[in-house]
């Protein structure tokens, strides 16, 4: 590959990827449109959050990959310690301990863990020749499992799933043998009963139960899912039109601006709108995987691949849950839902991708 001056566009020098940026901007427009429909009050605060998240992305994009690699172990260990601290001193909000109060600000260490997890696993794995041996894979699994359990204990099922999957994606991308993967899947299946009977909280169990039969309790636990399905279904091919969704305007939908924003979107913009939204998502994912493939060493490839896969998990879990395929676990719709932390983590992740794409460690001549 020959790098010419023409290739080094203004975006390249700013370490910004124009294609990813285009995708992100399109999503933001859809997000603001939908939020305005839910309530105009959400628009300005969301704009502020988007601004902060954008800045985070730009900052992350300026940091060269070597720096990420060098700091990974330190940051990871601090983050694990903070998770332990949350369990001991944490702030309880809505029955779950997620917040750590630093005096001047409260924040969720689990959000940072979401970002740092792929780095930690990739850091470990990239020291060895790929594919790694079984013994190393076990150590890598340990790196994934410890924080996951700490977060699951808070309890925050949604985040722990995202953290676990972002670590496991690295393992998968590193080319670990299909045989091991098969065995691991079998083990997970065996673990399900343990999870069900010992680790899950009552409210999480109700959510899973409701998933299988929401109509059994239409006014209680099933109410949210039924209302959400009615919203999506009644949107039809073309949707009811912007600000015309009766399900959301008349407040039948819960959490319209956060977890259930997809239902609002589907009701007002219909199947056509959904196809557009999914196309944008697919475009971003494709571009992300492309960047991962072009990355120069194992560490960056693995991290980039995992970030983009986690992004997909957000989308899949959220749409799956509001359309009745998956249990309601409290995952926002990536870059569309209202809310600060998830947008910042996601855009910071994209900043990392952009950094990997624009800082080349060595020029191949």
């Amino acid at each position, binding site marked *: 590959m020959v790098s010419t001056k023409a290739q080094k566009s203004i975006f390249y020098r700013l370490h910004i990827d124009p294609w990813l940026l285009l995708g992100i901007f399109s999503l933001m427009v859809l997000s603001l449109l939908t939020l305005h429909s839910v309530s105009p009050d959400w628009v300005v605060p969301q704009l502020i959050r988007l601004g902060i998240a954008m800045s985070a992305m730009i900052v992350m994009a300026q940091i060269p990959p070597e720096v990420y690699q060098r700091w990974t172990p330190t940051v990871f260990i601090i983050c694990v310690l903070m998770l332990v601290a949350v369990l001991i001193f944490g702030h309880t909000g809505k029955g779950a301990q997620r917040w750590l109060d630093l005096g001047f600000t409260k924040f969720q260490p689990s959000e940072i863990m979401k970002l740092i997890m792929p780095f930690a696993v990739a850091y470990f794995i990239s020291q060895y020749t790929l594919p790694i041996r079984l013994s190393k894979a076990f150590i890598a699994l340990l790196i994934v499992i410890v924080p996951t359990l700490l977060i699951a204990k808070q309890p925050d099922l949604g985040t722990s799933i995202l953290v676990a999957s972002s670590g496991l994606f690295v393992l998968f991308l590193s*080319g670990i043998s299909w045989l091991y993967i098969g065995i691991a899947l079998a083990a997970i299946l065996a673990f399900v009963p343990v999870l069900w009977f010992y680790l899950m909280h009552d409210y999480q169990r109700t959510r899973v139960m409701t998933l299988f039969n929401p109509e059994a309790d239409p*006014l209680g636990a099933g109410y949210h899912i039924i209302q959400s399905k009615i919203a*999506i279904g009644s949107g039809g*091919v073309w949707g009811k039109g912007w600000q015309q969704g009766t399900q959301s*305007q*008349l407040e039948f939908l819960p959490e319209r601006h956060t977890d259930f924003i997809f239902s609002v979107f589907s009701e007002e913009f219909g199947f056509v709108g959904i196809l557009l939204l999914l196309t944008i998502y697919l475009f971003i994912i494709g571009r992300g995987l492309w960047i*991962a493939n072009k990355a120069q060493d*194992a560490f960056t490839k693995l991290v980039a691949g995992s970030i983009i896969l986690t992004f997909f998990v957000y989308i*899949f879990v959220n749409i799956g849950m509001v359309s009745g395929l998956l249990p309601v676990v409290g995952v926002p719709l990536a870059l569309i839902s209202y809310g600060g932390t998830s947008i910042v983590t996601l855009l910071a992740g994209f900043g990392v991708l952009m950094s990997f794409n624009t800082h080349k460690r060595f020029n191949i001549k």
Partner: protein
Amino acid sequence: MARKRVSIRNHSAESALFMRRTLVVFIAIICAIGGLITNLYYLQVSSFESFQTRSNDNRISVQTVPPNRGLIYDRNGIVLAENRPVYSLQVVVKKTKNLRQKVNKLRNMLDLTDEEVERFYSRNRYARSYRPILLLDQLTTEEVALFTVNQHQFKGFSIKANLKRYYPFGDAFTHVLGYIAKINSKDLKRIEAKGETARYRGTNFIGKLGIEKYYEELLHGQPGQRQVEVDSWGKVIRVLNFTPPIPGKDIKLNIDIQLQLKAQNLLGDTRGSVIVMDTRTGGVLSLVSNPSYDPNLFVQGISSKKYNELLNSRDRPLINRATQGRYPPASTIKMQMALLALDTKVITEHTKIKDPGWWIVPGSKRRFRDWKRWGHGEVDVNHAIEQSCDTFFYDASYKIGIDRMNPFMKQFGFGEYSGLDLGEETKAIMPSREWKRARYNAPWYDGDTISVGIGQGYWTVTPIQLTQATAILARKGEIITPHILHSIVSEAGAFTPPKKMTVPIKLNDEHYWDIALKAMHGVTSKKTGTAHRAFAKTSYSVAGKSGTAQVISIKEDEEYDADKLKEHQRDNAMFVAFAPYETPEIVATVVLENAGGGSSNAAPIIRDLFDEYFENIKPKQQLDF
């Protein structure tokens, strides 16, 4: 170490492996998205009609039904705080056509002001179209009737009835009842912290002050829930399930409306406060702080102009003087001081001193003057209380010392919260060496003790503390806690307040009580007593004590001349009293700011209140007490 391994790795093989895995992942993602789309296609295209029908016809909505707030009665069952229906006119914009034309029609019909119409349009701009938007608040019954007759012309417009808190007696009970007002962000935080968010769903109001705040827990109630089916316009078709709200509890106060209104009347324009309390139960029969203000202003949402007026008024109407006003107690505490002097054996019943009209701290030149320039002559303790001789108490307090004064007076409740069921209270100051060190970083001087000995100097009290202390005196040391709540109407029996201080004050000789109380009786009954004129020819026996507190310090040789002083510098007039002297029933405290002498100005008010109680109120309510 890691770096070295990189150098011997087969990079192209690793890249190829990674590329293969990425490809697998990409295919998986396409499949997964395909799965999502299939499901969404099923929902939105295949089952569209069924969902559309459900969306249009069968909407189940869960609504919160706010509870009615408990009413507040006086001890006779007269309503002091009630919930009145108020009507507002609202519009669902989606349901109307030619909105502007209709609003214009209404403008003539209901005399809408331009401002109201303007506000409506600006609300409309931001509100969602299916939500009812407020057009006019607080319609009169005539307006409601007028609109209802013509309702067919105004599709989408409707009248909504709401209950609003109303205080029928306006400013007469503000400092007792307080008021409720819109929940603000600070209240919200407190509600969240207490985990009571669900309790306040559907409610906009919360107790902000006084009884309304103190008994919020009792008065608020529990919201109910209604699961309803609504049509595509959000209109309720039928109720599926209804959990009725639990209304707040109605409460009865110890306050007697007759006495309260009388007290407010007697105060007139004077700044000050009146408290009347039952010495046997601690029930507060009357608590007035003047000037007051109309609490209904706060329920409606007070304008910032009006609020600033209240806030910045020189007369400080927002302050509850009865519980937050801090005054030097002056001579009203002479009985307690005499008790201490007797108990510490500084004096006996028969100790006499010569009063030339002044007193000098031994070993110094500082001269303390008596209010009577020429002196009282030979004085014993009885005489010293009856005629309020300062010199006697200068000498006694010098011998007692601040270290014995502070703990003794604290037993009477000075420097402590009285335990009254109102949130707005200050502890005022019962000074001590430690207090002065902490406050002024200065040592305690003998001169400080002398001032405190006649209830001046650093010592400040609130009228409620003075009432409590006088009641404890009348009960010969038995502690009593003032309280306003009489009972919860639905629950039989009077409410027992939580006891704060229960250990009675013990003196070395019980007879000391009689000495102090007898002298206090002399104040109102003997010709030589300072207040005998105010209590001449009562049908009941009284014990009382005046107090005239200096607001500014008069220099050693200066004469106090009320006419020369500015109004805000004049003395505070105070009087405490209980009756009957033999078997105490009620105790009262009157504090008049900048009104001059206690016996001449404050005592007549108590006389009138006691007359009212013994001649009009007590005979009627014999059974209730």
